[in-house]
């Protein structure tokens, strides 16, 4: 089929998409700081206990945390999609000017490879096939994070652990936890693939939903979503997906007091890795400048937060501060060429970045704007061998109406658990 051309700023170029570009007034977006994630799975269970606790939803983990590089839910989702793209365009999945000049419209350079839409256009038949993807087998949905923190047994003895334990030779190890929800993409693959047009993107906040009355359970969305965040429910014979806790985002949750509120998975995050917001969108689907929005600052000014697998081409609205200790080639594959700059800035943060990082999880109300009041210098020394100063600035968060939500400082006290709650969590 002939596709429309839309602009994908994460790829730095126009790309093919089955529909004309239509963009919401504001976009649901979030930043996860992976450096802080401890995989406690509080987000996972907050979502599970809110939305997917019913019969037929046993395998549904709309929010999950997987241990990279080995884990994934469904198993191997990302490497399978990468392999499909590599097979469709051998050796061509590269960024053409990753080190070249950057602009607002191409902050990571230009992607010279093929997206899941472009590869489908060139390689798939029949013409109705719109997205390159695959349908995970049943057993790939069996375990949310198989082998996480568990030893595996001897080879050839399934279901049995070593009785005496084993000692591994000294080896270099690294891993990190990747927290995921639906990215509520600007160019959703699930929406593009649905033969019944049952999937839609809300014009007010860009949240992607499946109309349950229209869905007939063809599972084209499950096959198409490269992040595998659309899931099929066998007993209801429809597909379901993350709804971005839209009643909370709308300010209709009783707790919200009418103010836009962050999702359950964000609010439950004890590692304080998560911040969610609603960002302004321009006529081409990119983020409109909004300098004092914390998400805009992290993604477009400090450029420490990067999209997950931007090369898939869906322009995901979830952004990640990449883990500092992970080998760069792996991170570049996962987050694109912006990785080196992002980690350099995160590892030696400037005054504003330190302040914005303090905004994470101080409140469940969505932050639309922040201000910083300068405080005294409290440390002078070095970091990474370079001169570094720390100031005890105060950062103030405001809601949509411009009302102050909270204020906090760079230096926070450490609270000793009081005797009366010594064993509570």
């Amino acid at each position, binding site marked *: 089929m002939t596709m429309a051309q839309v602009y994908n700023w994460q790829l730095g170029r126009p790309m093919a998409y089955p529909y004309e570009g239509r963009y919401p007034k504001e976009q649901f977006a979030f930043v996860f700081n992976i450096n802080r994630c401890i995989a406690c799975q509080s987000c996972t269970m907050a979502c599970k206990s809110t939305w997917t606790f019913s019969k037929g939803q046993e395998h549904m983990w709309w929010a999950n945390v997987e241990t990279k*590089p080995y884990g994934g839910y469904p*198993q*191997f989702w990302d490497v399978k999609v990468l*392999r499909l793209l590599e097979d469709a365009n051998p*050796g061509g999945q590269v960024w053409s000017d990753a080190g070249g000049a950057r602009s607002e419209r191409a902050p990571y350079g230009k992607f010279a490879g093929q997206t899941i839409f472009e590869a489908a256009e060139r390689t798939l038949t029949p013409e109705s096939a719109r997205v390159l993807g695959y349908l995970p087998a049943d057993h790939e949905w069996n375990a949310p994070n198989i082998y996480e923190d568990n030893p595996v047994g001897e*080879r*050839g003895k399934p279901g049995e652990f070593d009785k005496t334990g084993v000692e591994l030779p000294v080896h270099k190890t690294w891993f990190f936890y990747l927290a995921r929800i639906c990215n509520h993409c600007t160019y959703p693959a699930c929406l593009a693939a649905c033969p019944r047009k049952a999937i839609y993107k809300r014009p007010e906040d860009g949240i992607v939903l499946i109309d349950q009355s229209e869905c007939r359970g063809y599972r084209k969305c499950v096959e198409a979503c490269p992040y595998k965040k659309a899931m099929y429910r066998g007993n209801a014979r429809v597909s379901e997906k993350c709804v971005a806790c839209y009643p909370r985002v709308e300010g209709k949750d009783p707790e919200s007091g009418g103010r836009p509120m962050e999702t359950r998975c964000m609010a439950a995050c004890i590692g304080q890795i998560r911040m969610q917001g609603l960002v302004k969108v321009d006529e081409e689907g990119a983020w409109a400048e909004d300098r004092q929005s914390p998400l805009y600052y992290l993604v477009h000014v400090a450029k420490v937060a990067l999209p997950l697998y931007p090369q898939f081409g869906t322009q995901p609205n979830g952004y990640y501060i990449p883990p500092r200790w992970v*080998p760069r080639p792996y991170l570049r594959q996962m987050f694109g060429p912006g990785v080196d700059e992002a980690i350099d800035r995160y590892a030696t943060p400037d005054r504003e970045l330190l302040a914005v990082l303090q905004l994470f999880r101080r409140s469940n109300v969505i932050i639309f704007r922040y201000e910083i009041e300068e405080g005294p210098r409290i440390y002078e020394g*070095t970091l990474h061998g370079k001169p570094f100063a720390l100031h005890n600035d105060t950062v103030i968060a405001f809601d949509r109406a411009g009302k102050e939500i909270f204020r906090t400082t760079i*230096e926070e006290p450490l609270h000793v658990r009081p005797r009366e709650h010594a064993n509570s969590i």
Partner: protein
Amino acid sequence: MLFYEGPSYEGPPGKEPEATDPMMLVGVELEADESSLRESCRVFAEEFARMGFSEARLLETFRSPFYAAPHRAYQALGEETVLAITREEAALWGRFRVRDRDAGPETGLISLPVLEGGQGERGTAGCPRGPGARRTEEE
């Protein structure tokens, strides 16, 4: 081009793996260069420093083989490098206040020293403790 491609097939549950199966977690080795190890060392030091470890205690942690990952970094990078990292991280992130409600609202609080003659939260410029040292009023 792919930097890393994980195993692409996991056999059906309960079936014996065969030698030719690209089974998960078997023989998958990924590159980790020295910069990665150095950064790991820094995040270990930063995290423990934020938890209140002094510079000396941080170094002991790296020296101890019971802390496998920090010790591996210690072995690979050497004492001098680890010492420089722990010193820097402890000086920067090891400065924090302790609030102990049981010790009472006033005595349970220790504020930070402030440079340049500025005022801290409770105006405690000139607090005698040095960077990285953890103390409460009870001590």
